């Protein structure tokens, strides 16, 4: 994992005034393994679409966060709200947009 990216992502969460600690390595693992079960281990797509930075660049972070939290009804994208906090999802959005997996 790119440590600088992780540091930046953590800082931005801190700036946002979030006091809930976010476990970056655990979330990065979740992105790879569990998002990866549909989007591919390298996130280049599978049953779900490509979610690498180039593919996501034209979305607002808020839009991506709401897709992760509430899913896309009528598709295979499930809501992650039962499992993740707002802060964790914001961390994941930063991570995805910055290509943290690469």
């Amino acid at each position, binding site marked *: 994992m790119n440590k600088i990216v992780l540091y930046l992502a953590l800082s931005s969460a801190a700036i946002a005034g979030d006091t809930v600690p976010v476990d970056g390595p655990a979330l990065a693992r979740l992105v790879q*393994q*569990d998002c*990866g*079960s*549909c989007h*591919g*281990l*390298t996130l*280049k*797509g*599978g*049953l779900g679409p490509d979610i690498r930075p180039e593919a996501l660049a034209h979305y607002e972070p808020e839009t991506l966060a709401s897709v992760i939290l509430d*899913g896309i009804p*009528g598709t*295979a994208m*499930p*809501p*992650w709200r*039962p*499992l993740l906090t707002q802060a964790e999802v914001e961390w994941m959005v930063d991570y995805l947009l910055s290509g943290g997996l690469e």
Partner: protein
Amino acid sequence: MKRVFLGAVAAMALAIPATAQPTGDLGLIVERASGSLLVVDQSDRAKIGRITGLGDLSHASLVYSPDERFAYVFGRDGGLTKVDILEQSIVNRVMQAGNSIGGAISDDGRFVAVSNYEPGGVRIFDAETLEMVLDIPTQSKTIGLVDIPGTKFVFSLWDAGETWIVDLSAETAEITKIEGMGTNPYDALVTGDGRTYITGLFGDDHLTALDLWQETPEPMPILPGYAEGREGLPVYKMPHLEGWALAGSEFVLPAVGQHEVLWVDARDLTETGRTQTHGQPVFAMARPDGRHVWVNFAHPLNDTIQVIDTVTKQVIHEFKPGPGVLHMEFTPRGREVWLSVRDAGKVMIYDTQTFEKLREIDAESPSGIFFTARAHRTGL
């Protein structure tokens, strides 16, 4: 295979042809993150080697040649790799697509078919040379690819809700398309006799079956409205359907969006029961004798296994092997089961009668486990 014998082979590798070594109780385990395969010996409950350099093996699966010497490995990155279990090496490797999901080998061992997401379709290769012999574009992601008797393959289209049958028995391939299978088939299975093909549907509240012994197979909805009136629960991992679904005289199938497995009479395809489970089932695998069904679950409940009695349909055993139980494989007659516990970095072996743990084997993010006995099973 005895270790002494194995040692002898290693010592005399130059003198004895590798083919003198039997492969009937060997197997391969996918190490998904490192792009490698562990070669294992089921009787010794041991790893005996590792084959590396297979690319992105997330969601990888494999099939065996009829002589159980070679395996064809289908990687998520579109790689099709032929490996030699005896030499523990890669024989040939082609990048045949950008994104693939699984494959099958024809009943005569001549053709290997690969199911692709990108570009959507199925490609068929000569099993000997890995040269492509047929490209079947579908404009859709393809899933549920299986072999059936008569040098035929069957697969389904996620986007179009169709099932296609490819007949390679003659000089020119013949393709039969069956429409109206339902919305978003996510996986499929075929029974060991090659007769009944069942697709699970993500977008409809039923499954669909085909009787492949009919001249013109017609889609038959089964378990219509099984989740009717109930809130669909989030599905954090799609279930798998496999030829392990027949338990006694019933099929046992994972529900989608409901924490239960569904029982269906194998003859008339009517519902015979439901069993509440710990979470969203991923694999519901009947032990080869059909007496018990082992079930694992989607994230975040993927540390648990439940065992269901086929006669009473009750959960009779539940345990937590560890974090990330991804796959199970029974020894061919069902006495032992091997479990991949991804986040523990272990493959765990259990006695299926006593549920006692017999052995742990270290592995790097293990996922699929495949014993060579699959070579002689239709649809696996």
